[in-house]
């Protein structure tokens, strides 16, 4: 189904509606996040999501776009990201051809040429401009992903976009200003984002889910995983998060691991399988070395004992 064919859904009118809407699109949010999303939609404020990698920050934007029937406009940030690749650019090659053509035709009206060269026809729209202008008359969901990877000059530019939802093109004037897009900004916190930008947004720290919610997520996202294996996988990952590892596994890793185990036709965790597949869960050699063998087996024993007692943590 293409986004254009999707009917626009009216914005939700309560936190519960948001929760339902997200869960029908397989995103199991906790109540705090749902409240934040609800307020962002209601107040027309950007949503600023910070959290460890793999906890579902980017996913919320995608799900919102799908759930509300809006197109998704994604801007991946990187160092040196500038206006030309984030907001708009001019088609210089065509402009040069245009000048040559004008010369060949013997046109003498220089000022008119100048005006023509900076008209809509030569404008190349980039994600930010498309987002504030709207796509096919609809305000999209704008995802500014991993803002911490961009440098500070770009952050400063984003301030105008996020407060007024307009972009000023010197040659054409102010663009945008219609229905504002729904903005989701994410950051992995590899550096602190400036307070001025945070102030314009609703802030939410996306944390690792608790066991019950993680089981629900696993059930929604990887329905093929058996109930018994799923419970063990979640309990094991939750056990890992209590250790002080260098990088704790996120929800994305849990899903990957469950899928990997399914591919290996595993129906129940055992120490050998865990040792073989630890690389799916942990991405640092120090952590893997530490866990492999006795410590992993120890967590597993604990997990199985807890599950056997019918007291899943």
């Amino acid at each position: 189904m293409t986004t254009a064919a999707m009917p626009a859904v009216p914005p939700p009118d309560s936190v519960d509606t948001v929760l339902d809407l997200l869960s029908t699109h397989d995103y199991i949010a906790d109540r705090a996040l749902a409240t934040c999303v609800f307020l962002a939609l209601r107040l027309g404020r950007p949503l600023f999501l910070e959290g460890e990698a793999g906890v579902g920050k980017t996913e919320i934007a995608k799900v919102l776009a799908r759930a509300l029937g809006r197109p998704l406009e994604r801007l991946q940030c990187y160092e040196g990201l500038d206006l030309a690749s984030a907001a708009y650019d001019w088609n210089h090659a065509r402009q040069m051809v245009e000048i040559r053509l004008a010369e060949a035709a013997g046109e003498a009206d220089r000022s008119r040429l100048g005006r023509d060269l900076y008209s809509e026809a030569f404008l190349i729209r980039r994600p930010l401009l498309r987002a504030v202008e709207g796509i096919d008359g609809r305000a999209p969901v704008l995802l500014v992903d991993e803002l911490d990877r961009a440098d500070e000059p770009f952050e400063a530019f984003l301030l105008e976009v996020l407060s007024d939802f307009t972009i000023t093109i010197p040659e054409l004037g102010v663009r945008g200003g219609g229905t504002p897009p729904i903005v989701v900004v994410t950051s992995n916190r590899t550096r602190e984002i400036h307070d001025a930008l945070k102030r314009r947004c609703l802030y939410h720290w996306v944390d690792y889910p608790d066991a019950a919610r993680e089981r629900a997520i696993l059930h929604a996202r990887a329905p093929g995983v058996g109930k018994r294996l799923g419970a063990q996988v979640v309990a094991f990952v939750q056990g890992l998060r209590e250790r002080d590892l260098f990088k704790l596994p996120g929800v994305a890793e849990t899903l990957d691991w469950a899928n990997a185990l399914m591919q290996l036709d595993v129906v129940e965790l055992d120490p050998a399988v865990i040792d073989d597949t630890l690389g799916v869960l942990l991405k640092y050699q120090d952590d893997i070395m530490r866990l492999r063998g006795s410590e992993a087996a120890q967590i597993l024993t604990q997990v199985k004992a807890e599950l056997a007692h019918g007291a899943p943590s």
Partner: protein
Amino acid sequence: MARRPEPRDTPAGDTPTGGHLAENVLQFVRVLRAAGLRVGPGDMLDAVRAVEAVGPASREDFKAALAAVLVTRRQDVALFDEAFHIFWKDPDILGRLMGLLLPRLRTPGEDDGGSQRLRDALGATPPEADPPVPAETQRVSVDLDWSAQERLGTLDFDKMSAEEFRRAQRLIDVLRLPALRVPARRRRPDPRGRHVDLRASMRASLRGGGDIIPLCRTAPEPRPPTVVALCDISGSMDRYARVFLRLMHGLANREPHFHGFVFGTRLTNITRPLRDRDPDMALAAAAAAMPDWAGGTRIGACLTEFNRLWSRRVLGQGALVLLLTDGLDRAEADGLDRAMERLHKSCRRLIWLNPLLRWDGFQPKAAGVRAILPHVDDFRPVHSLDSLAQLVRVLSDHAAGHSPRRLEAARAWREALAG
């Protein structure tokens, strides 16, 4: 106190045009200047005029009028308040006030707070110095003549007298820090740059009518690096840490991406307190945040904690890490090797500053030293002003990614150690 004519009266008791008031205002301005506020002769005239305009009827108005003219930087407000409070009081209680004021601003274990500067400026040794002393002997000069400065430069911080140490700290405040820059992706216009900026070229061509397209060029614009300082504040490092904290304060105010941490038995982030412009205020605030000054050390545990909680937040953009420690660890370097390896892999350059290197025959015997050494890019002594000045010079090399010759020496030493 002999140099300062006493304020003859409280302002409320004087007439606006009275000679005493103007005289006292001038004296007050001199005190402020000696204490480090940036006030010139022009400000003196303005101050007198402002006071005359407001009138001396209300003490609050009087103070506000002086502050409006004399205080131009946020960080000077506290100093001004203090000076005003002391100066425009009955001179008899000045001494007692000083006594009350001093302990509040001390850094731990040393009499060196904001009001030390003010005390110098007021020219007063503590209260009992009331009997008149000849003006010359009472003069306190912060500038040093050349030979004294030279001697101070090579002197070990640990061997300095209290007075010398205090002077040395002042000299660190005025140490010139180089502009640190690292290569970056963002570009700026540069006629000798390698990239052609089509957008600017088009615009420039239209300005000339569109016949000729002059090529506008751009070159990468270097950006300030992330600098992270980790300072050991255990008992054995006491004086060096004190000095290094002052250098950290300088960096915190110069470098937009600076993060400062101290560790003894636990890790503390002191970036925010260090950002205060006034060195004394900043260090007092930082000291208040450190619970474990001059205690034991658990280097391994603290660095592990840093790796886990902070490294991803502050080392993300190719950081330059300064680690100040003597490597003498209470916990027998437990886990230090792994923590150092992780730290080294997470940053661009790791520089170890070790005061013990001041001895030429220093041998890496301690377990902590042996654990740290394989994982540093460079190591340098920091025991005297000269070595600090040297460090400041190599910092810019490191930031730009150049390898100072010292690096080779470090590698050779490391290999000898392994062999």
